[in-house]
């Protein structure tokens, strides 16, 4: 494992690295491909599988927002693919994020083994929608992978609990993410 990846994953101290699905196990037999949402850190190539309920620290962006860094990986599909991302508050199903569709060029290598892009993807959480607190409560990320023909190829979801830093350091986060 390259050192930088190891460091990146090690830095995800709050993540429960429970390991992904078995390398050969099909996640959803009804779908063509596999998709797994992992967690990562800003701009890194790290990938860490995570269990539902994992705490994840909201990461500040350069423009003052706060994000959850996700790292989806794919298997069993290649070519030009579309990735749709949603995030909902678990308690009432309220949509917290409808991210713009990403177009991903996946190499043929991904047909036989897990593949992921070079960098993690920041999923925008804050500023939170008016009246919706984006931290200290469960948020479910749902990713869908589509072919160019809009065929659903794979899907996955992950429930995390976004956290602001504690104490004074997290005051801005709590302000911006309080809705």
């Amino acid at each position: 494992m390259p050192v930088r990846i190891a460091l990146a994953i090690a830095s995800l101290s709050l993540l429960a690295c429970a390991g992904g699905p078995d390398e050969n196990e099909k996640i959803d037999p009804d779908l063509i491909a596999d998709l797994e949402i992992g967690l990562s850190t800003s701009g890194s190539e790290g990938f860490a599988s995570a269990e539902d309920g994992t705490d994840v620290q909201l990461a500040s962006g350069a423009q003052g927002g706060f994000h959850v860094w996700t790292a989806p990986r794919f298997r069993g599909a290649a070519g030009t693919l579309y990735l749709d991302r949603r995030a909902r508050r678990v308690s009432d199903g309220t949509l917290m994020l409808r991210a713009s569709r990403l177009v991903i060029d996946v190499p043929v290598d991904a047909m036989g083994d897990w593949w992921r892009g070079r960098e993690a993807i920041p999923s925008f959480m804050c500023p939170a929608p008016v009246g919706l607190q984006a931290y200290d409560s469960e948020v479910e990320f749902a990713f869908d992978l589509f072919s160019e023909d809009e065929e659903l190829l794979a899907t996955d979801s992950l429930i995390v609990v976004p956290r602001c830093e504690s104490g004074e350091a997290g005051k801005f986060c709590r302000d911006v993410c309080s809705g």
Partner: protein
Amino acid sequence: MLKLPNKILLAASLSAVFAGGLAALDTNEAEACGCFVPPDPTVPIVQAGERILFGQQNGIVTAHIQVQYSGPAEEFGWLLPMPAIPEMELGTDELFAQLIAQTQPTYRLDREYKGDCPFDSLRGQGSGGFESSPDDSEAGEAGEGATPLVLRDSVGPFDYAVLRADAKQPMLDWLDDNGFFVPGGTEDVVDAYIQPGAYFLALKLLKGNDVGDLQPVVISYQSDLPMIPIILTSVAADPNMGVQVWVAGDDRAIPRNYHHTRINDAAIDWLKAGANYVDVVTDAVDEIEGHHSFVTEYAGPSNVMLDVLDYQGRFGSMAELAAQTSAISFVNYINNSGYPLFGNNGPNGFAPTYASAILNILTSHLPVPSALLDEDITAAEYYWNISYYLGQYRDENPGKFLDLDIDFSPTEVAAELQERVVDPTLAAGQMFRDHDYLSRLFTTLSPNEMTKDPVFSFNPDLPDVSNVHSGEITYYCHLLAEPTQETTPAVLITEQGFKLVYSSGTGDADAENPYASVVMPQSHYQELLREEGEPEVVVDNTALIRTALHNAHQEDNGGCFVGGSSSTGLGSLAFFGLALLGLRRRRDS
């Protein structure tokens, strides 16, 4: 060559890329530095408003930003916090002029006449009506010790640099050493944006350029959602500064962290085609706590902008243009190839206008003779009629052409036009081919209200919003022996179904809007728009508005309200009795 005067110009601050203001920690006291940095903190500057078009596609936000500033040209500076190294290109003012024209809210009246109304222009031809528009003329407007410099380049009139923002002092030192003005107080604000992986984009004018050379910039950067760094502009802002945003995407755009307001259209001065619209919006959004709310002015297909900027054949061929070796043929090629715009904005009603970038290029290379300028012949008039001025007029007035300079390089001028006019205009037009949907949102904010940077997202479940609003006014001419439009009792039903009664007539063109004095909410609905589903109505002012109007009408029955002239009691009473019978309530829309 003509040397543009080094004039003092208005400056304003606008930033396209949100820098998440840690400065907003204490939002009520935020005195953030404008990202457009004034040369001298003691010099008052004016921010006329912000106009931005966002496009969102594949995780990339593209922002077209109209720069509206004043201040000494040589000290122009602009500082933008960025989430990543941005791509920067030139934009075009024409984009905003056309966006305004195509999506401008308009208030028009359908007119109905009861009885024999001599002022009915279609009398004898059935029911008539006309449309009016509030302002058609607007269609025409690193670590320590290492250099923080990531890249430095120029585009059009701008000299720009991208700097790493992971350490404050090296960045500020670099700006100072390289002539990018940084006013006092910036240090405190910049702290909020100093972090690993962050950048600042710094702009200034290249030497030889004037503030008149400013033109929009286009910045692309990776982000899920577009934001406006309004906190950063608070220092340079006017009270109730307009913030005009267009968002091109797949669906209708919503203000994610701001409220949404639907204005009370009974507060609109329908008789003057909505001339008080901005005031109504300002008051309506101020009814929200924190004054953080947007009005959607248009939401619908982006094809209202299709072929507007980039219609087939526009700009002709650069090779053909470069082959025009005489001043007359060169300028006439421009005139005949879609460079100038046409509108009813000239002294004689119809005149071409040239974007400032075009005029700046032409006046630099083919300057207008000074004697003609002294005669108040404008540059636009000169270039549009260049065959005349360099032909017959010159023959008749050779003394006025002593400083004529028509020695130019067609290739060089054509290249400048390509860079500063053609490419930006075509790229802007492409935005409306890449995105199917266009939303236009507006609010006004005073500096002390600029405490939260608005973020925009999308909701595919929301309906379209038309920018064209219609009311219906009925004149009751049979109530008067000699009816005139000014004195005839009339009833206006607004688009939202509110009834406005003009028992003494609508008055003449100078009459004040009688409903301006009615105390009522200026917002009809205050809402939350989510990223899916219908609007969540927070406040519904329908009942309050109706009560306020009812009370006003009751007062009018006493003979002291409504109309361009003072009311006449008995006439009013009789009119009310008749008018109310004939009224129908229109469904709120």
